[in-house]
C-alpha cells in the first residue's frame, strides 16, 4: 500500500529524498515527465491539449528533529524541525540519519526527578537521543551534526477502516495526489510534491511561481480534534466525516467558486464532506495564492487525528472519498468548469 510506504519513509523538511524516490518509482508508468527544482520540489508534468493549467500540491516533508551536538557521553542533542509538541517527545523511538540508526529519546527516570520536575514539560535542553553509543567518538561513527531524526513509527491497521502511522500530514495528501495522477486528463495537470511546508510553506511558493497555474488544489492531512475534552465547536474536523474543505485558514481565503463546485459534486455523488472548523494554521495554499498576480486555490484535506506527533490516525473511508472528490473536480474542469 502506497500510503504505508509513504508514511514510513524518512522525510523531514529539507531531506525529502526518500519520499521523492518512492513517488518517482510508483508513478513511473503514469507520469510522462518530471521536473525537480532547486528547492527539491518534485513536479509531475501531465500536459494536456485544452483547458486551464491546474496545479495539485501535497507536501512531502514531515516534522522531525535535527542533531545539533554530540555529548562526550555519546548522547545526541537536537532541535526541532517544524511544529512538534515538546510534550510528545520523551520516551519515543526515533531513527537518525538516512542510515536509520535506531535511538530513543531519553530523560531522567521518575525515581530521580525532583517533585517540581514531575509537574513540568521537559524542555528540549533536558532531552537527548540515546543511540547506545558510549562516547562521542563511537557516536560520530554513526551520526554527524545536521543529521535528521524522525519517529520510528510503523504503519498499521487499527480496524478495517482506520489506520495509524506517522506523518499522515501530509503523506496522506501525497498518496491522494499519486492516485489522482494515475488517470489522464484533457487539460495540463501539474502534480507538485512540495518540500519544506512545515518550516514556512517554502517549497510551494517557488513551484507555483515557476508553473504559474490558473488554479490550484492543495491536498492536506489536517487537524481532527473530535475527542473528549473538546467542545463540539472545537473539533476542527471529524474522523469519518468525509474530506474537509477549507474556507479560510491562517494563510489563505479559499476561492468561493471552487468551494461551491466541490460542494455540488459531493452532493450529487453522495460523498460526505465537511468544512474545516478552525482557521488556525497555514498551508501551502497561502503561498500559492499569493504568487505573482494571484492564483485561486482551495484546500481539500483528509482529517487526521494527532498530527505533529509520533503517530497519527485516519479513516480510509475519508481517504478514498478525498480521492474520489478530487477526481470528480478534475473531471468537472475537463467538462468546462472555469473560474
Amino acid at each position: 500500500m502506497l500510503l504505508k510506504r509513504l508514511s514510513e519513509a524518512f522525510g523531514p523538511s529539507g531531506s525529502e529524498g526518500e519520499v521523492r524516490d518512492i513517488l518517482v518509482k510508483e508513478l513511473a508508468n503514469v507520469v510522462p515527465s518530471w521536473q525537480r527544482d532547486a528547492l527539491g520540489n518534485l513536479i509531475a508534468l501531465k500536459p494536456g491539449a485544452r483547458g486551464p493549467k491546474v496545479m495539485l500540491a501535497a507536501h512531502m516533508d514531515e516534522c522531525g528533529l535535527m542533531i545539533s551536538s554530540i555529548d562526550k557521553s555519546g548522547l545526541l542533542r537536537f532541535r526541532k524541525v517544524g511544529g512538534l509538541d515538546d510534550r510528545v517527545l520523551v520516551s519515543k523511538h526515533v531513527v537518525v540519519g538516512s542510515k536509520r540508526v535506531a535511538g530513543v529519546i531519553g530523560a531522567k527516570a521518575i525515581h530521580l526527578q525532583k517533585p517540581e520536575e514531575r509537574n513540568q514539560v521537559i524542555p528540549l535542553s533536558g532531552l537527548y537521543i540515546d543511540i547506545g553509543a558510549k562516547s562521542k567518538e563511537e557516536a560520530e561513527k554513526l551520526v554527524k551534526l545536521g543529521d535528521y531524526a524522525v519517529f520510528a513509527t510503523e504503519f498499521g491497521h487499527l480496524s478495517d477502516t482506520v489506520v495509524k502511522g506517522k506523518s499522515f500530514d501530509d503523506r496522506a495528501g501525497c498518496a491522494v495526489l499519486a492516485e489522482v495522477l494515475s488517470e489522464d486528463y484533457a487539460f495540463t495537470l501539474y502534480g507538485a510534491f512540495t518540500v519544506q511546508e512545515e518550516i514556512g510553506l517554502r517549497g510551494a511558493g517557488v513551484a507555483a511561481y515557476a508553473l504559474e497555474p490558473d488554479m490550484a488544489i492543495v491536498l492536506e492531512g489536517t487537524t481532527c480534534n473530535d475527542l473528549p475534552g473538546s467542545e463540539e465547536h472545537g473539533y476542527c474536523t471529524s474522523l469519518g466525516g468525509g474530506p474537509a474543505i477549507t474556507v479560510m485558514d491562517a494563510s489563505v481565503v479559499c476561492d468561493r467558486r471552487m468551494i461551491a463546485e466541490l460542494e455540488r459534486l459531493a452532493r450529487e455523488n453522495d460523498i460526505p464532506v465537511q468544512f474545516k472548523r478552525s482557521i488556525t494554521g497555514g498551508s501551502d495554499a497561502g503561498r500559492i495564492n499569493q504568487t505573482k498576480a494571484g492564483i485561486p486555490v482551495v484546500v481539500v484535506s483528509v482529517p487526521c487525528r494527532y498530527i505533529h506527533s509520533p503517530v497519527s490516525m485516519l479513516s480510509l473511508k475519508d481517504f478514498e472519498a478525498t480521492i474520489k472528490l478530487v477526481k470528480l473536480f478534475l473531471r468537472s474542469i475537463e467538462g468546462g468548469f472555469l473560474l
Partner: protein
Amino acid sequence: MKDLIKQVVECYGPAGNEKAIRELITGIVAPYVDEIRVDNLGNLIALKKGGEKKLMFAAHMDEIGVMVTHVDKHGFLRFYPVGGVSPLTMLGNRIVFENGTIGVIGCEKLEAQKDLTLNKMFVDIGASTKEEAEAKVRIGDLGAVSREFVDLGPRLVSKAMDARIACAILIEALRTVANPAHDIYAVFTTQEELGLRGARVAAYSIAPDVGIALDVTRTGDTPTSITMDVSLGKGPAVKIRDSSVLCTPAVRRYMEQVAKDNDIPFQLEVLEAGGTDAGAIQLTQGGIPAGVMSIPCRYVHTASEMVDYRDVENGVRLVKALMETKYTG
C-alpha cells in the same frame, strides 16, 4: 461627499468576501475611468490614463469580521476572528451576514470579566434550532459588524472607516481629477486585514513605478492614549513608518512637497504597530518605491471609528494633487 462616505462605510465586506463593496465601488467609479477589472484575489483595479509613469493607489475595501465555524443544536453560531478582532469591543455588537441576516454577540457565563475570550463568545441570530439557524447561515459564512454611519458635524463615526474612508477619498479623487500626470491605477484591495494579501498580487500584475497606500492611522489625542504625534483635524498624515514598511524617502518627500505646494495641511506619522498595503507593494517584484497617506482615526477596529471631515477633504485634495503632479523621484 458625506453621502458617498455613508454608502461606502456602511456596505458589507469582511476580508475574504468583498463582493458587495466591490460591486458598489465599481458602479460609482466605472464612468470616470478608462479600464476596470477584477483580479484573482478580488481586487478592483481601475485605470485612468494620463502619463508615462504608473502611479498606483491602494485603498483596502475589506473590513474586520468573523467567520462562522460551528452551529450548535440550539442555533448559536461559534466563530473565529477575521483580522484584528478584540473580544473587548465585540461583545454586544450586531453582526450582519451577506444575505442580510443580523445576529448579536453574546458570551458564556464568565467567572471574571478578564476571562472574556473570543472562543467563549457566539452569535445569536434568533434561531432556536440548528436547522433554523442553518437555513440562514452556514459554516464558513463571514459576518461583519453592523452599525450606522453618524455625522457629528466636523467628525464622522462608523464601523469600517478602516479603510473605507480611504476608498471614499480615492473614489472622490478619481471623480474630480482634471489632468492626471500619470497612468493612475486606483486599486481597491482585498484581504488587507489578513496580511496585505490583495495589494501584493495587484502590485505584481501592475508593476507600478510608485505605489501609495491610502489607509487610516491611530491617533494620540484621546485621554491617556498611546504616545503618538497624530491628531484628528490636523490634516492627512504622510507616513514615515509602521511595522510593515519604511516608506521610501523619495516618495515621502514627493508627498510632502505636493502638500506644501498646494497649501494642504498635513502631519507626519510614525506608527509603532500595524501595517499597510504599502508594506506589500514595496517588496513586490524587484522593489517598488512606496508611501502612505493616512487619515487619522480614533477607536480603530471598533464598531465606532471616528475621523475628522476636514482631514477627509484635505485627503481628497492631496490625492488629487498627487495624481496631477509628476513623480520625479
